[in-house]
Each structure stands twice: as C-alpha cells, then as structure tokens.
C-alpha cells in the first residue's frame, strides 16, 4: 500500500514537472473566443519578390481555442478568416485576389486553421510561452498539415484587460509558411509575381468570457 502511494506521488510529481503551462492565478480548462467586435485581431500574409513586397491583411477573424492553463499541450481549436476581407492596399489587386484564379472567395469563403498538436514548449515568462505547433490549414478547399511557431501571452482579468474584453485574455502571435502551389493557387496577380511561399502571420487576442 505504501509503495502504491509512493509511486502515485512520484507519478503525480512527474506530471506537474513535465506539464508546461502558464504560471498565473487562473487555472483549469479555459475557452477563448477570438471573434473581436472591434476588429482588432488580424491575419496577414507577406510575399517578397524582386519586383515588389505584398502584404495582405484582414481583421475578419473568428474562432475558439480551448486549453488547460496549466498544460499548454492540451491546446485545441479552430480559427477561420474571411477570404473576401483580405486587403493588399490596391483595390484592383484585391478584386483579383478574390476571383476564381486566385483564392476564389465566392466558392471558398473561409480560410481555416485547426490546431492539432503542440510539439515544443519554451517558457519565456510566467505568462508567456513559445510553442511549435502542427495543424490543418485549409485554403481554397485543400487541407494540408502545417507547422509553425507561436508566442502565447496570458493576462488574467484586470481593469486594464477589461478595456479590450471581459475575462482573461490570451494573446497569440503566430507565424507559418504556406506554399501556394500546394493549395492550387496560381502565384500571379495581374501580371505581378507573388512569392511561391508566403509567410502567414496572426496577431489576435481572445477572451475567456
């Protein structure tokens, strides 16, 4: 019986030792909603070519992410972006971006990312973690597994955080690369060459309320 207790405590201790998460006053399972009425959340793509650098950005982000505050490996969720809302700074180019030769916004209104797995965790601060993740990225109806890096910042509800949204806040800054040809996207818009591989960045804040 004593051995059983000892082994149970050793097992429990090893679990707390290896489970990496936020060291904040909140704990347990939390779900964060990334639909921001203020449209401050954003997803962007960056393409660099000798001819021109192109940045496409949208503030139309929706989705929910759930995690155990004490164990980040439990991170799961789906984020979607409205295809038609992506803007590049040139109206004509935006139109071409939406048409069927490129992202085909009418047929594929959303670009989705589903978090599948957290591979590596690095604790940057008590409320900040850097992780490597793997997930399913769906663009133009094609779904492929993609890996990337993200920094997660947890802020427990305070008077300052209430300015943004009620509840605890989770800041997400993620980056990953997307090879356009993998998703059946032709890499030219009105004769302008777009990079074959574009970098996708996400800057968003979710609230647990």
């Amino acid at each position, binding site marked *: 019986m004593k051995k059983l207790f000892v082994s149970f405590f050793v097992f429990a201790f090893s679990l707390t030792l290896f489970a990496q998460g936020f060291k904040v006053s909140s704990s347990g399972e939390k779900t964060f909603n990334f639909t921001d009425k203020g449209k*401050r959340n*954003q997803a*962007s793509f960056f393409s660099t070519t000798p*001819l*021109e650098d192109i*940045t496409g*950005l949208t*503030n139309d982000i929706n989705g929910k992410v759930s995690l155990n505050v004490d164990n980040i490996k439990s991170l799961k969720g789906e984020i979607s972006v409205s295809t038609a809302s992506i*803007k590049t*700074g*040139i*109206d004509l*180019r935006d139109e071409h971006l939406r048409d069927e030769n490129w992202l085909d916004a009418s047929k594929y209104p959303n670009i989705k990312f589903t978090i599948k797995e957290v591979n590596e965790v690095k604790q940057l601060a008590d409320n*900040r973690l850097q992780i490597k993740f793997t997930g399913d990225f769906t663009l133009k109806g094609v779904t492929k597994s993609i890996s990337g890096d993200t*920094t*997660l*910042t947890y*802020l427990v509800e305070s008077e*300052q*955080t209430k*300015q*943004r949204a009620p509840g605890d*806040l989770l*800041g*997400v*800054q993620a980056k990953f690369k997307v090879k356009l040809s993998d998703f059946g996207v032709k890499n030219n818009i009105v004769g*302008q060459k777009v990079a074959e591989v574009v970098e996708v960045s996400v*800057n*968003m*804040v979710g609230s647990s309320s």
Partner: protein
Amino acid sequence: MIVDHRNVIELIFKKIRFKIVVFTKRIINMVKTKSNLKIINIISALLVLSVIVTWLLHGAEIFTKTKILVDKTTELDKMLGVKNEVWVDKFILGFDYSALAIAIIILTTFTINYYSKTKRKES
C-alpha cells in the same frame, strides 16, 4: 491686434497674387514673342521632373497604392505580445502611374512641337 494680423495676412495674399499675375503675364508675353515652343518644352521638363520627385517622395513604389498600413499597437497589445496594424486610405504614387503621366507629357509636348514646326513651314 486681431485687425492688425488680418491686415498683414491680406498684404501677404496681395503680394502673392501680384507675383502670380506678373509671372503669368511674363509667360503669356514669351509665348506671344515666338518663344512659345521653348516655354512649352521647359514646362514639360518641369512637369516630368515634378512627377519623378513626387514618385521618389512617395517611396519609389512600383505599383500605385490607395491604402497604407499604419501601426496602431497599444500598450495592452504590447503586454499581450501582439501588434495591430490597420489599413488607412492614402494615395501612394507608384512607377506605373508616374510612367503613364510622363509618357502623356512627353507625347503631348512632342505633338505640340511637331504641329508648331509644320505650321511655321507652311506659313
């Protein structure tokens, strides 16, 4: 005191108006005195130069833009480790429109020069 300031502003405006009138009259006189082609060529060169300078001042972009990204990151955003950029309406002259404008100026100047010389020969 307010009346004095108004008088000064009125005087400045009068001087500017006078200089513009004098400059315009000089150009009209030069045009009348057969040096009109030279004037047109100088004006065209100045226009081309101003287009190039505007294009360079706008960042020498290749394509004309109607929106630019402006950083609106707040202190709370920084605490959350995110940045916030928004599209703001702003016209940025690119090489495409600059080249078109320069081409139109050069073509117009060339056409005026050609017709003026042909008219002179005929007369």
